[in-house]
């Protein structure tokens, strides 16, 4: 149990206050932000760091940001080393300083106490635009990062308490829908302030030294906790390889391999990926950490709170610079928080499937979605947004239950909220014809993967640009523990464009222009199944058929359940037994 000199009761109190602080920062962000990507998608993180700077608390927010703020904070603090003053506020997005992708903007606020730097409050959020040639930043045609938007190395937007309006103006002038971006800057700044206020009050009450001792102990406890999980895994080397499909770049499919070496309480994860490519799927090192940590978390299955102590005995080698998972400038990268991150996560997950088979769950549907942009004639103004509803996929099944429907993508792990369709139609000049679950989309297994979704849109106010991103359109989400599906075509994503009475199916990332009367349906994949589908309880298969989650055809091919009368769900038990033996 506790081994330090810290009073155990004060320790619990300090932990409670830190969690409340993080929660209040999150709420402030969520309620005030303009960008639906961050206030609905929860595509943001709030974190607290100590002065060293080591992450002392991250909310359970979104896996995309799991850990990626750790190297980013260090890069920012190094950049301004010796020049960090009370009242400074630093902004940054550049992946070469361990940012994730440039549309994620981070604010770093140093918290001083009696003249001394003690903490940092940090927020990161996905804006709706970051300049560049393509609205919302995702440019499948970019061959360099410069064609994706504005790179912002660490820059002070407040200097000793004075806002640098010229710098802010420079940044905002380069972005679309300026009002929204400015509002989101304000939301990030407000959240940092809320955090700082609480931390100062905590030190007023217990004294700086006591608070710091408690935090040191919380980090040590998290470290011991993760050690305890890893030490249960037999020593050895475990390897997982996942395939990243070619979503339109023409370079073919890629393999990403994770090699996990367990030695006592130590865990080393080495990543091997092909050379970087002139397409927006490269991941710089900071972002890749999130993919690795998500794979680790799918094994560890820890409840919050999370701090950097968890990773003290976890070392990561992201492979040589200039590779897909350890990119260097000028590699384009905008898609990185989903592609290749989810494949990277799959590779780590597969390695752990060998290391700790009892704890493994199936992969979730990968992100494949769209951004929309155009002119809103109702208010005579520009609009641009990522459509969160378009990337809601099915969750992977676990060793104990079916995957949740409509809960992915994997990189978000249920942290998203997709937004009310009336609110979307109120905010943007569109009509959403469908937002529903898809029959047979969940991976077959003893426990079934969750269903993916279909999101169909039509513009109402002149032409609308639609940009797609992601993958998971050819390779379905991976099952676990022997799960496999027969009807794989129904388990992958795609874009269906309906124009002039014809429907075109697209599996590449594209930029399309839609007019009123034309429709685009974005289909998100289902999650992977868990275990042999022929062992799935027939009653549960029938319940799925009754609810249209599985078709009669799916029951036969995916589950070996032969239904002779679809209306009354009559089963031919003999034929079923035969089919299931095959």
């Amino acid at each position: 149990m506790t081994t330090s000199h810290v009073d155990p009761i004060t320790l619990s109190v300090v932990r409670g206050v830190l969690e409340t602080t993080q929660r209040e920062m999150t709420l402030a962000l969520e309620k005030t932000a303009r960008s639906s990507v961050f206030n609905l998608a929860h595509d943001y993180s709030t974190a607290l760091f100590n002065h060293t700077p080591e992450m002392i608390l991250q909310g359970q927010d979104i896996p995309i940001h799991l850990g990626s703020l750790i190297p980013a904070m260090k890069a920012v603090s190094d950049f301004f080393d010796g020049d960090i003053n009370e009242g400074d506020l630093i902004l940054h997005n550049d992946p070469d300083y361990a940012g994730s992708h440039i549309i994620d903007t981070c604010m770093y606020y140093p918290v001083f106490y009696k003249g001394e730097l003690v903490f940092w409050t940090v927020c990161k959020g996905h804006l709706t635009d970051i300049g560049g040639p393509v609205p919302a930043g995702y440019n499948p045609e970019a061959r360099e990062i410069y064609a994706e938007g504005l790179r912002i190395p660490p820059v002070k937007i407040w200097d000793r308490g004075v806002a640098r309006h010229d710098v802010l103006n420079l940044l905002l002038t380069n972005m679309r829908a300026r009002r929204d971006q400015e509002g989101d800057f304000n939301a990030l700044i407000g959240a940092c302030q809320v955090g700082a206020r609480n931390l100062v009050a905590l030190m007023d009450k217990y004294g700086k030294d006591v608070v710091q001792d408690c935090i040191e102990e919380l980090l040590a406890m998290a470290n011991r906790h993760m050690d305890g999980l890893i030490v249960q895994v037999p020593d050895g080397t475990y390897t997982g390889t996942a395939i990243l499909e070619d979503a339109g770049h023409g370079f073919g499919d890629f393999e990403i391999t994770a090699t996990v070496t367990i030695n006592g309480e130590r865990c080393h994860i080495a990543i091997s990926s092909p050379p970087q490519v002139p397409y927006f799927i490269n991941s710089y090192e900071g972002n890749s950490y999130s993919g690795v940590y998500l794979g680790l978390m799918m094994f560890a299955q820890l409840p919050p709170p999370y701090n950097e102590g968890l990773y003290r005995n976890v070392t990561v080698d992201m492979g040589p610079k200039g590779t897909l998972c350890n990119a260097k400038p000028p590699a384009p990268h905008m898609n990185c928080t989903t592609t290749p991150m989810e494949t990277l996560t799959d590779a780590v997950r597969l390695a752990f499937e060998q290391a700790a088979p009892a704890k493994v769950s199936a992969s979730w549907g990968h992100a494949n979605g769209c951004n929309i942009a155009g002119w809103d004639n109702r208010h005579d103004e520009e609009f641009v947004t990522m459509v969160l509803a378009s990337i809601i996929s099915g969750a992977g099944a676990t060793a104990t239950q079916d995957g949740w429907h409509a809960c992915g993508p994997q990189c978000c792990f249920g942290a998203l909220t997709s937004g009310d369709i009336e609110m979307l139609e109120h905010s943007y000049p569109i009509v959403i014809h469908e937002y529903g679950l898809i029959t047979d989309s969940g991976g077959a297994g003893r426990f079934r993967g969750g269903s993916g979704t279909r999101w169909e849109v039509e513009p109402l106010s002149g032409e609308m640009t639609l940009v797609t991103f992601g993958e998971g359109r050819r390779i379905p989400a991976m099952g676990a523990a022997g799960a496999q599906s027969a009807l794989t075509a129904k388990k992958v994503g795609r874009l269906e464009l309906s124009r002039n009475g014809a429907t075109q199916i697209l599996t590449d990332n594209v930029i399309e222009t839609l007019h009123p009367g034309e429709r685009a349906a974005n289909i998100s994949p289902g999650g992977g199944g868990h275990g042999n589908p022929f062992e799935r309880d027939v009653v549960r298969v029938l319940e799925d058929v009754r609810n249209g989650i599985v078709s009669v055809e799916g029951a036969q091919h995916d589950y070996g359940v032969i239904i002779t009368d679809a209306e009354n769900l009559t089963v031919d038990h003999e034929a079923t037994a035969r089919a299931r033996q095959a």
Partner: protein
Amino acid sequence: MTKTYRLGIDAGGTFTDFILSDTKGDLRIFKTLSTPKDPTQAVKNGLALITAETGLSAEEIVSNADLCINGTTVGLNALITHTGAKTGLIATQGHTDSIEIRLGHKEDGHRYDPNYPPATMLVPRHLRHGIRERVLSDGSVRTPLNEDDVRAACLKFRQAGVESVAVSFVWSVLHPEHEIRAAGIVREELPGIHLTVGSQLYPQVREYTRTSTAVVNAYLAPILQRYVAAIDAYFQDLGARRPVRYFQSNGGLAPGNVVTEQSVYAINSGPASAPQAALDVARPWAEKNIITCDMGGTSFDITLTRNGKANINKNIDFLRYRIGIPMIQVETLGAGGGSIGWIDDMGLLQMGPHSAGSEPGPACYGRGGERPTTTDAHLVLGYLNPGGLVGGRLPLDVQKARAAIKTHLADPLGISVERAAYGMFTIVNVNMVNAIRRVSVERGYDPRDFVLMGAGGATGAHITALAREMGISKVLVSKLASGLCAYGQIISDVKYNHMAPAPLRLHGAEAAKTLNDLFTSLEARGREDLSADGFSEGEISVSRTLDMRYVGQVHECTVEIGAFDVTLSTLEDIKAAFHARHKELYTYDEPHNAVEVVNVESTVTGHLTKPEHMHVAPGKSAARALKDHRDMVFNADGVAQNTPVYDGGALGAGDTLHGPAVIEEVTTTIVVEPGWTVTLHETGTYLIEADTAPGVSRRQAALAVA
């Protein structure tokens, strides 16, 4: 001459509380076990108990009552146990899955938990039918209603034995005609079926919220209808003068037919009466800013009232179902007397949310409980009388409490039993303080500007500690504390919420006129209902709220305004109120940016006369009520000090005493920490005030929570 009574019956999870008041200020509390399988039975049992204790027959009370008021958990229980009616949903084609997609979200706190199950569907997918029809965001019809689709759905419902139907279409709030016509067809096809129409139940923008609210309502309506029919008939037989009024989670009363139509309003009604009770108890001090804390066996409920108005929640997840209608905000924490102390995987001491309940109960009950609970900590710290709770009817075993704390907490942590007990007490307090922040700080309020009021049997042990932690200097605890919610119900008013969507930007004469017309028409409906219910114009009041945001924001903040004419100039006042509220909540505002409204609401209230306060005879001296001394711990060092114990029943009005002390009432024990002074007021309320602050440290303590 016979007296006039008012009877309140508040069904809780474990107990059903009865409160009987008469016009002379005589108030009495009675408790009987709840009977969840047949909720009407507890009502009959309770009335029999009252007869046994007072000699008054049920007929005598009911026929001489100006009002009988009932708060029920029937709806809540049906939602918890998923035993509502078999329900069907008629929705816009393409959108029948919104209640299952749930915005694609998995609840926070369970992100990497492989065993956290999806929410149980109240309407399974095969009972959800899509209808070809579509209205756009400007209210225009894109696709007319396909009536054949509605009839086909009805056929399926009939075959499936559906009891209740919800109809909810996209943008029906801007063009209700499709829903109304569809409802008409359902009535033709399925005569006598329960019907919930989304745009009538909850006419607000947000399809998922509206559909989900309609589904919950439809799921509960048949259950509530059966309950209300039974209660109404029973009271009618007893000679009730007026129909029974039911307490709703919006903090108001409504007759049975309204509760049946709008069952969703009844789901969390019990604790929602605390603000009303608090305002009444605090009336002698004219306090209108009050935080109430109600600690029972398994949970701790908090409400906040500011300027005489309770915090309201809209569009929240309740028991994992999205519910739009306004409900009094009740923040609930798994921290009761039975909450178990344990050490987590990280090695940290935690309290709750697991509870020992009433069986086996805390270790000190001696009924086989071995885990240390909050009550065990109270006992070890000396706060509780080892002679027993409830006037000695429940003896407590100190040795068992000590053993449980030693084995499970003190030894593993390497500290003394007393320190561990005080640690348990402290962690419960911290959990409570963090929960109180959710109703105060997160709403932009400084808790130091509030009075703290204790309710429920177990709160008294924590009340001065909580006030100290929050920097609150004034505390009120009524002798009725253990039945405060039942009391709140008998002094509540009849209340209706009328809502409308108003998606418009807040500028120009047209916007002002639209808003003004909306409010006027909403309130006309409310006045009509109340007038039909016998309220005169002078007994009716109105309050208004608007859900507003900066254009581009996704979430709104709710701003309350007066019932003034909305004109070009008052439009500016409304905007100013929004900027101010935004700044209060989020540290900044953007006065140069455009503001838009999403939804509006008027609350129309019919005021009822209030019963008299309790009256306590003047006392001569607190010393006369001194009954004992016990060793008690008030410090983290675990060192005990000899502390006086007073008999609350022997204290008179005006009697004053100083902490450290304990006051024992029959159903509650009040711990007065050092540094606090207590005076019993003639209305039966203890006023507990912080002694003059010793300066800096107190201020620092206060700042720490602001």
